[in-house]
């Protein structure tokens, strides 16, 4: 193919968008809407993931130190725990502090527990966090075997339930986004296909006048690419802007402080790249697949 012919194909592809005015508009708006939905869900799911992570980060192992252990024994135990690979942080909570927070947690009713201060029934505690929250159980079992450990607690039931919830959330999110992506791909390719079926006769005429398959395909390639890219611009801009604003609002509203949102910075770039990629890919693929059918003349 000569260089000028490539130029001709690019120009022709662009012109076709204009020539098929209504059809082009319909295709681009299908791309726009679908990518918008995919993008919005992508942001939602990334945030749900973040939220799940933050829930999991709250999981900790409470190591009750034997009452017989003196200070030296305690710091020995602390280094032993810290030497375990899976451990991220170890915090010491003296029994006095433990009782204090217990009483506080009872609110008004806590006053009735004041009597306990005289003879504190609690242990000193190490609060240990695993690097990967999902390792918590293994970690707890390992710590159990160390000396000067009276007991180990990590709320087995609740933690397992929490993990099954967060895992369901993650898998559901992945299934959802993949499902939506395929839906989008199908619908966009479908729309493009219909617009090209409508041009079946034109393609056949071109072949009868001596055009090769490649010659006919190229402008459609360019057209599909442009459709996809043009259709991706609005959702990318709108979602990026909207997300940045949303994060601002959520962070500025005290009542919503419990919502931890994924920071926009790398996220909207990734989202933008993904949408642009999907748009371009489906645009090209959809138009190539559809043209193929009519080239046999």
């Amino acid at each position, binding site marked *: *193919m*000569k260089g*000028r*012919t490539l130029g*001709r194909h690019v120009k022709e592809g662009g012109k*076709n968008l204009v*020539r*098929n005015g209504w059809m082009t508009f319909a295709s681009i708006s299908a791309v726009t809407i679908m990518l918008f939905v995919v993008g919005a869900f992508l942001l939602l799911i990334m945030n749900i993931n973040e939220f799940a992570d933050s829930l999991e980060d709250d999981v900790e192992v409470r190591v009750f130190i034997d009452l017989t252990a003196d200070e030296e024994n305690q710091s020995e135990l602390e280094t032993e725990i810290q030497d375990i690979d899976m451990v991220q942080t170890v915090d010491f909570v003296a029994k006095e502090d433990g009782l204090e927070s217990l009483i506080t947690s009872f609110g008004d009713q806590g006053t009735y527990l004041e009597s306990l201060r005289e003879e504190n029934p609690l242990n000193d505690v190490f609060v240990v966090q695993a690097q990967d929250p999902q390792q918590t159980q293994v970690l707890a079992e390992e710590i159990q075997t160390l000396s000067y450990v009276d007991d180990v607690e990590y709320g087995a039931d609740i933690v397992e339930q929490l993990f099954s919830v967060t895992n369901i959330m993650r898998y559901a999110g992945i299934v959802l986004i993949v499902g939506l992506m395929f839906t989008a791909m199908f619908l966009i390719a479908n729309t493009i296909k219909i617009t090209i079926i409508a041009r079946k006769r*034109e393609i056949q*005429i*071109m*072949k*009868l*006048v*001596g*055009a*090769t*398959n490649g*010659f006919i395909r190229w402008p459609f390639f360019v057209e599909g690419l442009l459709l996809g890219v043009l259709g991706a611009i609005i959702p990318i801009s709108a979602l990026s802007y909207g997300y940045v604003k949303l994060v601002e609002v959520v962070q500025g509203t005290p009542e919503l402080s419990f919502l931890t949102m994924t920071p926009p910075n790398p996220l909207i770039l990734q989202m933008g790249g993904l949408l642009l990629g999907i748009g371009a890919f489906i645009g090209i693929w959809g138009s190539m697949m559809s043209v193929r059918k009519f080239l046999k*003349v």
Partner: protein
Amino acid sequence: MITMKEVWKTYPNGVMAINGIDIHIDKSEFVYVVGPSGAGKSTFIKLMYREEKPTRGTIKIGDEELSKIKERHIPLLRRKIGVVFQDFKLLPSLSVYENVAFALEVIEESKANIRKRVMQVLDIVRLKNKARFLPHELSGGEQQRVAIARAIVNNPSVLIADEPTGNLDPETSWEIMKILEEINDRGTTIVMATHNKEIVNTMRKRVIAIEGGRVARDDAKGGYGYER
């Protein structure tokens, strides 16, 4: 140039359009194809540039046998054959200029050459002033002349014309016929299906009459025949 041997064509719906045709057309010949409506003229012609494939028999264009040409080389064959389609087959979203230029873009001509040559043929068919019109903005006869321009623009070695004067007034028809004769004089083989008795009888050439998908008559300098 064109040879058909025992060619039969049955359409998928069962219509037997061509029933055993043997014909040889020499290089630089000018041949009229005549016959009643539905006789098989267009089918006969469509077989030559392979819009339709024969059910049986062999067709040769030049030295090439059509059934032996690879699918992807068919466009190369079609570039050597200019076709004026009975239903014009103009690209509806392209202007007159672009429609004619398409036949040259396909062979990757330079832009300057395309421009020169397209304006030249549009001048020949007297449509230079309508170059930027879309097909649906043209009269029937004007559309037919665009189809003629596109068929001759790349100087094909064979020109096939299916009823090229059906929508033209007698005067314009004669102009077109003179153009075809000139092209023929320069060595182009011409096959033209027509119902125009006056033209066939005045400009005497070889006449192949088709009836019911068979060659009913083949006269070197015959007239239209079919006198009522």
